[in-house]
C-alpha cells in the first residue's frame, strides 16, 4: 500500500501539480463567467456542460505525460511495479479530483437557490466530463503526444457546439436539452477508453 501511496504522491507533486493548479484556477474564476444562483435544471446543466467540462480535459489528458520521454519510460518499465498499476493510481487521482470539483459546484449551486435534481446532474456531469477527458487521455496514450490529446479533446468540444445532435449518444450538451439517458453509455465508453489506453501503454512496454 505504501508503495502505491508513494507513487501517487510523487506524480501529484512532481508532474501533476501544475495541471491541478491550472484546474483550480479555472474553477476559482468560474464566478466571473457563469452564474451559480437561481438556475433551473437546464441552466444548471448548461453551466456544467459548457464551463466545467474543461476540467475533464485539464485533469485526464496529461496522465501519460511523464513517460513521453523515452528515458523515463524505460526507467519506469524496469521498476518492479507494473506500468498499469501506476496508470491506474493516476487515473484514480484524476477521478477523485473530478468528483470533488463536481460535488463542490453542485453544492454551491444548491446554496445559490438553483432548482434541479442533484443526483441526475451529478451523474450526467460526471459521465460527460469523464468521457471528454478520456478522449484526450486515450489520444495521448495512442500517439504518445500530449499535445494531440489536448488538440483532439478541445476540437471535440468545439465541434459539439454546432454538431452535438449529429454525434448521437456520444454528443455533449445533452443535459441542456433535458436528456440524461446518455450517462451509462458515456461512462462505459470512458471506462473502455481508459482501459484500452492503459493496455496500449502496457503493450508498448513489452514491444
Amino acid at each position, binding site marked *: 500500500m505504501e508503495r502505491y501511496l508513494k507513487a501517487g504522491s510523487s506524480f501529484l507533486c512532481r508532474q501533476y501539480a501544475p495541471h491541478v493548479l491550472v484546474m483550480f484556477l479555472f474553477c476559482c474564476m468560474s464566478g466571473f*463567467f457563469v*452564474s451559480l444562483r437561481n438556475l433551473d435544471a437546464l441552466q444548471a446543466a448548461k453551466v456544467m456542460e459548457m464551463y466545467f467540462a474543461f476540467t475533464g480535459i485539464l485533469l485526464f489528458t496529461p496522465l501519460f505525460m511523464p513517460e513521453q520521454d523515452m528515458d523515463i519510460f524505460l526507467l519506469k518499465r524496469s521498476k518492479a511495479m507494473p506500468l498499469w498499476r501506476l496508470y491506474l493510481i493516476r487515473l484514480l487521482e484524476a477521478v477523485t479530483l473530478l468528483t470533488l470539483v463536481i460535488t463542490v459546484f453542485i453544492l454551491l449551486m444548491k446554496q445559490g437557490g438553483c432548482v434541479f435534481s442533484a443526483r441526475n446532474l451529478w451523474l450526467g456531469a460526471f459521465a460527460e466530463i469523464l468521457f471528454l477527458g478520456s478522449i484526450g487521455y486515450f489520444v495521448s496514450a495512442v500517439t504518445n503526444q500530449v499535445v494531440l490529446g489536448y488538440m483532439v479533446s478541445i476540437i471535440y468540444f*468545439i465541434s459539439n457546439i454546432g454538431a452535438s445532435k449529429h454525434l448521437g449518444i456520444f454528443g455533449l450538451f445533452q443535459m441542456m436539452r433535458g436528456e440524461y439517458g446518455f450517462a451509462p453509455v458515456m461512462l462505459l465508453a470512458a471506462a473502455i477508453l481508459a482501459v484500452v489506453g492503459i493496455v496500449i501503454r502496457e503493450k508498448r512496454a513489452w514491444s
Partner: protein
Amino acid sequence: MFGTLFVKECKQILKSMVYYIYVVVFILFLSSQLSGELSESMEQPKPDQEGYGIVNSHEESAVMEKTLAGLVLETYHNSYATYPMGFYKAVTLNEAELEKIESIIESCTGKSWDQVVGELEDHFAKYNSGSMEEAIWAQTAYSVLPKEELEYQEFCEAMEKVCKIVGAGSAYKKESLEAGVGVPMTYEQAVEEFEALCNKDRITGATARLFCDYAGIILSVLPIFLGITRCLRDKRAQAVQVVYVHKSSSLQIIGSRYLANVCMAFLPVVFTSFIMQMPYQYHAKTLGVTPDIFAFLKYSCIWLLPEIMVVLAVSFLITESTENVISIFVQVFWAVASVFTSVSLEGNFGFQLVARWNALGDTNAFWMQRQELFQNRGFYFILSFAVLGLTVGIYEKKRREGESLYGKIFKGRK
C-alpha cells in the same frame, strides 16, 4: 542555408499528424459554416418583402422601444445576458428581484405586467416559431412603446436600476444604450445596401468577409498546436544538443521554423478560400456583376495571415521559454476571450485577436470601419515580428548556456 532549413521544416510538418488534423478540422469547420444557401440572401430587394434586415439607430424613441422590448423578453424568460468580464454570463433572478424589474417595466410603459406579457404573446403568436427565419423576424419586429410622458433621462435612470438588480455588463448599462439599437431596415435602405454590395464588394468581397469571420475563429486556436509541436519536437527526439551546436544562427533556425509553419498553416486557408469562392463568382455573374476573383485571397492575406503569424509567434515564445504545453491553456483562453469579448459580431475591431464581421453584406458599414481593421491587423503583423525576435533571443540564450531558462534558478540553490 535558410532555404534548405525552410524546405526541411516544411517536409517535417508534412510528416506531422497534428498538421493533418489541422487541415481536416479547418476544412470541415469552414464547409459546415459557409453553405451555398448564402447566395439566396444576396438577391435584389423587392418592395413587398416581409423584412429587409436590421440597421443600427441612435434615435431616443427607437432606443427606448427596443431596450424595453429586450427587457420584457429577458424578464419573460427570466434569463438576462450579461458580460461582467467580457464573457457571456446568463443571470437568473429570484422572485423578489423579478417583481422589482416588473414594476420598473410597468412604470416605463404605463401598463400592467400582465398586459405587457399579453401583448408579447400575441405578437409572437403571429409568427411560426419553428422557422428560424420567422423567429428572427418576430424578434426584429417586436418593440415595446414607452408611456408618452416618459422622458429619455427618466428612462436611463430606470435602466440604471435594472443594471443594479441584474448585475454588471448587462444590455441596460449606459454604454450599451449609447451604442444604439437594431431597427428594421426600410426598402430604400435595403436597395442602397444592395447597390453597395454589387459596386463596392462585387459580391465576392462580402462572402470573403464572412469566410474570414469564421476562419478567424478557428485559426485563433488551431495554429497553437502546430507551434507547440514544432518547439517540443527536438526535445522529444532528444536532438536539442545536436541542433544547438549546428553552424546556423539562432535567427536562421527559429526563422526558418517559423516561416515554414506560417506558410504551411496558411496553405489550407488559401486552398479552401479558392475553392469556396467559386459558387459566389458564378452567383455574381448571374446578377450581372463582374466578381472580384482575388477578393478571397486579398481578404485572407490581410485578415487571416497576421492572426496566424501572431498565434504561431506567441506559441513559439511561450513553448521555447517554458518547454511545456502551458501555451495551450494561455492561448486557448486568449482566443475564447477574444471571441466572447467582442462588443458586437460586426466590426468594433479594436485590438481583438479575432476580428469579427458575421454578416453577409453591410458593405457601407464595413467600408467605414475598414481603417480600424487595417490598424488592428497591422498591429498584430508587427507584434508577431517583435515576439519572434524575443523567441530568437531566448533560443540564443538557451543555446549558449545549454539550459532551460527556469532550470537555472533551482541549480543555483545547490
